[in-house]
């Protein structure tokens, strides 16, 4: 627990039940669940990379929608600010302007909190948090550890709570919240593609097309099957303890291939293939037709 008694502002962090260096998802949940889209995190990382000289961290506003039990963060923008030992200055005009502009594009997004890169919550955070409390009801504070202090990029969310003795010394405490990642379907596919750029040597990847994609997907399924097979081998040879739930999944997997009689399947396959071939033929014919038309017109 870290306490800094200076005047009327204290900021604590609740003690963690586990002594692990990254006590994130196991902590108490006193508040809404925070659902983050990956685009927000990518934006934060990008604005951290573009920070001004001498700035050690970046802050910005979080936009999204509020539900009864959850807060969904869908967008964010960074706000220029200056921070020194004893004072902090945030460009509030800028924040207001940007919010107006963003509202024009997506009118359903509201300010739901703010983010800061860096590992700890400092005193300045309390001041900034107060400003944001004026903009939004119960703002959440998100920290993203871009300096990778504990060899991991910790992404934590907090909400403020009043504490202390009412009337005398009151303070603000930041309680952590559960963080979940939520994707749209198309987002997941986009993120999947980005994941694959990790493996390339210069972190670059081109976009494939046509049959290559199906080939790629098939290879991935094949890899997964080999992993499963290896596990089964180990269980059979007694090296690994058999797990009933995994066994149930395996039976599900095997029974998922539908049992169709050979002739029926042949006919289905053939009719489908015929359809596709016919469509390909028609498409080629059309292309040849318009090409001819072009050439004739130019004559």
């Amino acid at each position: 627990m870290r306490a800094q008694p200076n005047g009327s502002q204290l900021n604590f962090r609740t003690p963690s039940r586990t002594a692990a260096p990254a006590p994130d998802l196991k902590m108490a949940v006193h508040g809404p669940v925070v659902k983050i889209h990956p685009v927000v995190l990518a934006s934060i990382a990008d604005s951290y990379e573009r920070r001004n000289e001498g700035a050690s961290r970046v802050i910005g506003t979080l936009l999204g929608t509020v539900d009864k039990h959850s807060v969904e963060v869908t967008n964010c923008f960074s706000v220029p600010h200056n921070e020194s030992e004893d004072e902090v200055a945030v460009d509030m005009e800028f924040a207001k302007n940007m919010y107006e502009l963003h509202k024009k594009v997506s009118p359903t997004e509201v300010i739901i909190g703010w983010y800061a890169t860096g590992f700890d919550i400092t005193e300045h955070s309390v001041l900034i948090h107060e400003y944001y409390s004026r903009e939004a009801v119960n703002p959440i504070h998100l920290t993203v550890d871009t300096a990778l202090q504990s060899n991991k990029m910790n992404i934590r969310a907090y909400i403020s709570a009043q504490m202390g003795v009412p009337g005398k010394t009151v303070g603000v405490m930041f309680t952590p919240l559960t963080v979940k990642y939520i994707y749209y379907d198309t987002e997941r596919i986009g993120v999947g593609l980005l994941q694959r750029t990790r493996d390339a040597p210069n972190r670059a990847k081109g976009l494939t097309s046509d049959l290559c994609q199906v080939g790629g997907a098939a290879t991935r399924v094949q890899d997964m099957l080999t992993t499963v097979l290896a596990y089964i081998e180990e269980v059979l040879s007694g090296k690994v303890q058999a797990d009933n739930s995994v066994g149930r999944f395996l039976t599900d997997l095997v029974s998922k291939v539908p049992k169709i009689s050979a002739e029926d399947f042949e006919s289905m396959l053939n009719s489908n293939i015929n359809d596709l071939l016919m469509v390909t033929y028609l498409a080629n014919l059309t292309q040849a037709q318009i090409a001819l038309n072009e050439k004739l017109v130019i004559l």
Partner: protein
Amino acid sequence: MASRKESMSTPTAPMASTSSGATLDSPVKQIQIEGLVVLKMIKHYQEEGQGTEVVQGVLLGLVVEDRLEITNCFPFPQHTEDDADFDEVQYQMEMMRSLRHVNIDHLHVGWYQSTYYGSFVSRALLDSQFSYQHAIEESVVLIYDPIKTAQGSLSLKAYRLTPKLMEICKEKDFSAEGLKKAMIGFEHMFEEVPIVIKNSHLINVLMWELEEKSTVADKHELLNLSSSNHLEKSLQLLMDRVDDMSQDIVKYNTYSRNLSKQQQQKHQYTQRRQQENAQRQTRGEPPLPEEDISKMFKPPQPPPRMDTLLIAGQINNYCQNVKEFTSQNLGKLFLAEALQGHNS
């Protein structure tokens, strides 16, 4: 700084004075996009696009040698009827000024648009891409296909206008002779630029984190066999376009028939005139005055050829998509056969 306001349905053209310093002789050979831009485009369509409406936005980045690096983007609000006094130029200026404060590249390098089943070859796109390319040499238009992406793999293509087409647009000469002179076919309208996705190291770390933390399983939509719906839709659009094309062709045919008929009529008229004049001469009467032939027979208006070109380009695009789709499906069917073969 002068700015040009183009048609209301597209983002306004960038200002001429902010174009890149050195004029490049060679056009862009490759496009490098950051992961952030991809995610933002996906999010924009997902949240704001419905059905056949397109969503648009502006791309920001910089040019490095012969590569165009796109490092950020921001969406453009759609047009609603109650926004009569909405000033697009102002929105763009304010956005870029604000982004400059946070050190985001504010160089305008192109724009993006979502598409519905690949139907994007239209006059509006041509016009706006021309204005962009005119002001900034290296600009591109990114076409993002959300429906194809939802089927399993990101569908993102970058297009530029060919220099030939740029010439034609500059002279605004869309008549048949102009196009014939330039020898433009529908294949030479747009050129596609290869795309590479590149991420910074920090984003890489983020990707590793996400993989660890997120429990969303991969759904493998790419291997889905039931996709005849998509095929039907594409073919429907293709048929509509072919109908348009055939109408155009009929118009052109009637025009050329009218033209030849008129030529014949003119010819006949001059002949008759000459005959009459000869007769009058023999009878000693003054010849009839020569009338202005062109005023009598007004030449019919040649139909514009640009639309036909666009339709042809669009049909070509649809056919390409359909072929890609069928090849993928054939592969999937053979996979299913292999799986079934083992079972029985």
